[in-house]
């Protein structure tokens, strides 16, 4: 059978160096080669996904939510009501957005699973902060979003995006690498710089375990989204300053995959290890189950 090799990030960089084409167009062309999808239609669909993220971020910014278990729901509202002491306006807006979207997700709100539901706060946080604080133009933002999706796609093909298969590093780690790519490409239009930013981000979250209390996507997931976008901002800022990742992005992805494989099952979305196994978590879960099972559902 004829084997088609899927291109990794370094292959895309080589194409870019040889052709000088707009990097987001290279990613769309690669998608056409691999899936047969029309690049114009893919670009339009990606714009739709980006617009939904921005729309939901706007709608939910700093609002309180009633989540399914009640373990979270007021974090975005609290940070929104608090004047930041040291965080920049950009970081603050991004952090509030990440909390808002993650809490909206826990309250069965509409989200874009970019790349997953559990990590759905990171990308809209970066998009929203760029648009609202840096007045990013739509076309520039879309190109950067396509590049970020391309970075996520490399992880999906070479490793995994699933917390159950690879731990939180696969979900939040990938979201952070994508958000770092987004910010870096928006300001630099340089895919090599993007590679460094994404590698720095994924390395900094390497080994992160998936340990949701009771298995529910609330604790620690909601706040991890908020931390992650700040990691992404710092990594992008470093890469934009010319700081390079010693290890190239593709190899970091491979390393992340191997780490994920070697994590015990208790640390992969089973709710049995990490903070999910703490005494407080166990008590909370017991009382949540009591409430859920006694409450009327209507």
């Amino acid at each position: 059978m004829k084997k088609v090799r899927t291109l990794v990030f370094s292959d895309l960089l080589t194409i870019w160096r040889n052709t000088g084409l707009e990097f987001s167009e290279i990613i769309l062309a690669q998608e056409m080669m691999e899936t047969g999808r029309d690049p114009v239609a893919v670009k339009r669909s990606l714009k739709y996904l980006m617009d939904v993220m921005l729309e939901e971020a706007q709608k939910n910014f700093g609002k309180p939510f009633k989540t399914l278990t009640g373990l979270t729901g007021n974090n975005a509202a609290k940070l929104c009501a608090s004047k930041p002491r040291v965080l920049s306006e950009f970081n603050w807006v991004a952090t509030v957005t990440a909390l808002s979207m993650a809490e909206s997700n826990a309250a069965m709100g509409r989200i874009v699973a970019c790349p997953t539901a559990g990590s759905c706060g990171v990308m809209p946080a970066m998009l929203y902060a760029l648009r609202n604080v840096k007045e990013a133009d739509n076309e520039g933002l879309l190109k950067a979003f396509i590049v970020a999706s391309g970075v996520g796609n490399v992880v999906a093909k070479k490793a995994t995006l699933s917390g159950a298969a690879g731990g939180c590093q696969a979900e939040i780690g990938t979201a952070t690498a994508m958000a770092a790519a987004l910010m870096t490409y928006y300001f630099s239009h340089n895919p090599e710089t993007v590679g460094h930013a994404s590698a720095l981000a994924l390395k900094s979250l390497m080994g992160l375990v998936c340990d949701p209390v009771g298995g529910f996507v609330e604790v620690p997931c909601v706040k991890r989204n908020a931390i992650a976008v700040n990691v992404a901002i710092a990594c992008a800022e470093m890469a934009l300053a010319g700081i390079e990742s010693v290890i190239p992005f593709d190899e970091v992805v491979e390393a992340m995959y191997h780490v994920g494989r070697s994590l015990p099952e208790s640390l992969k979305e089973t709710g049995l290890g990490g903070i999910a196994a703490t005494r407080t978590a166990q008590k909370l879960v017991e009382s949540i189950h009591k409430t859920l099972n006694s409450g009327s559902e209507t």
Partner: protein
Amino acid sequence: MGLLEVAGPIMVGPSSSHTLGALKIARFAYKLMGIPEEVTFVLHGSFALTYKGHGTDRALLAGIVGLKPDDTRVKDAFAIAQSYGLKFNFEVSDLGEVHPNTVLVKAKRGNIYNEVRGSSVGGGAIKINQINGVDCDLTGEFPTLVILNRDLPGALRGILECITYNIANVYLRRVNALEGLALTIIELDSNIDDETLKKLRTNKYVLEIYNVKSEEGENLGIQ
């Protein structure tokens, strides 16, 4: 998996496997037979343990009344189901050697009764692995015909002759030897037209036919 699956889909939270996948399985049953009068969801494994905290119950009800995965009314599914007069029931049971996130949907309307068993296998992807007791392996992304037909020589040929579309998979099993009944599940690359459906409905071997259509962009929520 491609760029759009990485950057999407649009859905309601909180979990792609416990909410989105569950909704898609129930929605397959809805597309099969419309909104039933009575439905029982038999929850297995991880679904059985955490279905309330993940909103799996609401997602299943949303799916069975035809809501799409990105519909913001999914969280109000209990009220919506009641407004349709739907009688619903959740049961917890061991369904045997199946994926941990598996649900069996038993749906009834008048004298029509169907069972759909599906597993949510991660990232919102599903496998419909049994329809009315017949094993199959459907992703739910392609149009599917479910046909109750006479268990006679030439029946399969007679059915397939009506279909000029490319067929991806066929599953066939005798379901009742005494009454001479077989179930045929046909997964297609594209939706069939009304003319083909009419031909199948009037085919001498066909007793019941369910046409599960696929809709543009329904899996990603992109309009």
